[in-house]
């Protein structure tokens, strides 16, 4: 998957709610705070066009018609793992609140009527996280499969020798891969590689 990092500059946010007025109001609110925000009535419609225009953050209602917010979150993550998701609901329950963060990787779980400062903070945090994810992905996108494997082991703290053992390569080959990784990502040493992987 190779998503255009350039889109992140627009700080795109999608809002999904089956209440047209609320979706539009939230979009305008976010627009006033510097986000490019677009409301959607139907999550299925957004899924069908998402690949062409991914966003940094999606604010989605949970209780919707055919596809609920959690189902939508699963589907959209398969298309784009680097998108931040914020849930909102008029039927808050403790179980859903825990699930939304633990199982569906939501950044926050907002209760309607919305607490405005909290919504703005969650969206800002989501956009920042997504941009950082995209940056890392962009910098490691040029790695070959073998280089990717070496990179993953290195950032876990394994030495060249250990990596060689794991992948059944010679330490010399690992050193070559490592040099290639540093060259392709522009990282300056192991510490920066680890920072990239986070």
């Amino acid at each position: 998957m190779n998503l255009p990092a350039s889109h992140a500059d627009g700080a795109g946010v999608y809002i999904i709610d089956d209440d047209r007025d609320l979706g539009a109001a939230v979009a305008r609110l976010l627009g006033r705070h510097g986000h490019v925000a677009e409301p959607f009535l139907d999550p299925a419609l957004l899924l069908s066009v998402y690949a062409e225009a991914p966003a940094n953050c999606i604010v989605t209602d949970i209780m919707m018609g055919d596809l609920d917010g959690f189902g939508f979150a699963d589907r959209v993550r398969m298309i784009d793992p680097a998108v931040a998701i914020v849930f909102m609901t008029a039927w808050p329950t403790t179980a859903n609140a825990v699930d939304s963060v633990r199982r569906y990787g939501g950044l926050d779980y907002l209760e309607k009527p919305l607490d405005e400062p909290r919504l703005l903070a969650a969206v800002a945090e989501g956009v920042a996280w997504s941009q950082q994810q995209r940056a890392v992905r962009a910098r490691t996108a040029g790695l070959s499969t073998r280089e990717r494997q070496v990179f993953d082991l290195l950032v876990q703290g394994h030495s060249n020798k250990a990596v060689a053992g794991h992948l059944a390569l010679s330490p010399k080959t690992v050193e070559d891969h490592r040099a290639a990784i540093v060259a392709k990502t522009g990282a300056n040493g192991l510490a920066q590689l680890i920072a990239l992987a986070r």
Partner: protein
Amino acid sequence: MTLPFPTSAAIGDALRAASPRRDDLSWLAGYAAAFFLAHHVAAGWGGQGFYSLLYPAAGVRMALLWSRGPRLTLAIVATELAVQTAAGVIAPGQSGWVSAAIGVARPALIYGSVAWLVRRIAAGARSSLGVAPMPLGLAAVAAPIAAALIALPWSLLSPELTGVVGLRQVCASLTGFALGDLLGVLLVAPPLLWAIQAVRDGPPPAPPGRRQLAALGEATLVLGAAIGASALLIRIGLGLPATPALLAVAWIGLRFGRTASWWAIAIVAAIVLPQTAGDLPLADRLALHMSLASIVVVGYLAGSFADAQLRAQADLARRDRMLFQAERLKTLRAMSVAVIHEISQPLSTLAIEAKHLHEITVSADPEIAQTAALIDRKAAALSTLVRRLRRFGGRAVDEPSALPVSLLVDTVAALTRPEAKAARVTLEIAPVDPDLAILGQEIELAQAIVNLVRNAMQACDGHVQLTVDRHNDRVALVVANQCHNRKSAQPGMGVGALVARAIVEAHGGTLERATHDDGFVRATLSLPLAGALA
């Protein structure tokens, strides 16, 4: 049932519990007089080896034990000993007086134990045997039989005491004893207990409607036919059959309950007893009294059973009504959750747009700016209210957290003000020191205080105060209301106060209710303060 080995402290407690209270003394004095009288009335049915075949004093004893509780057993024993000593039955110092005293004390002790045991068993019983008046019926039958059975070894071991020799005489003596007590208890205790209850609760409402008259007619017919049949059988020389009366009394008991069956029993007894007071041969007297006893026992138990059934049915109907009520509340809760949801959706939009409108009109025409600010404020207040209501109605359990008391009081105010207004009650809430904080679950504590405020609103004169004070390391929330007219009857089932107490105690606090001389009723909820709020 386990009976723990008594420690000396437990014995002390038991003795304290068994000693009569001040208000028992007049009862015991009355008992002494009634016992003396009844004991001597019984002498008319006396005989060789037993005191009497009809012993109403046992009925007086059972009535007192049942109405004042088995805790009076020892006091009753003491009273009977005193009466019999005064009457010369026990003559201290003379030979055999200790045995005589034991003979007097034993039945009362056994009656007390049986009454206690029957109540214990009935309290845990699930069948209709545990439903009043069935336990009284069982105790009334079991106590005389137990007293006679326990007297058996004494009679065998020390025959010189009763002057009874040989197994035949012992059996006759004890049968007479049991019969006398049974008849005495079942004939005397029920009307005494009704009289005590009538004095305590006022006379029972008994309008003699058409149904009562029909019942009376039916009972008279049945009993009259039975007595007539017996009289006919006696006239033509076929012995003294008890079966017709037995069937009639059982019928009346099952159909019309305990009161009716007691009257039927009393009529039968009034016919039989004068005949046995004379000098009939012992065997005939015993046979007659045994027949009478079986009629009395069957009739009284049948009546008690019918009453217990009625009461169980009434209980069931009441439980059904409560169930319906609970079901309605459940529906109401679901509806209010749905309403909150429906409101929260448009309110979200409204709040966002109102805030925006407020922000962009700050420097506009002052009139527009003011209006926009007002709309924004109201929308925000409404949003807070909806969130609060939802948390209150939801099942979510939050972790205990440091909670400003002022916030708690605000929540309570928001939840109770509408109801206070509807009930025309002034709810006066004193300002709260914003630094006071406690550790607890907001929703539960709010529920506890709301319950207290609602109770206060329902109880009294249209003025309820809620104040918060600090006492050292505790905070006291006081809900006060003034009662001019002492009406103790409150709507509701008192569940609110129970719930409040449970919640407060779970938070390490206490809940006290006190009526003061100035007519104020104060519910004081005391909770430990949390450390200073960060």
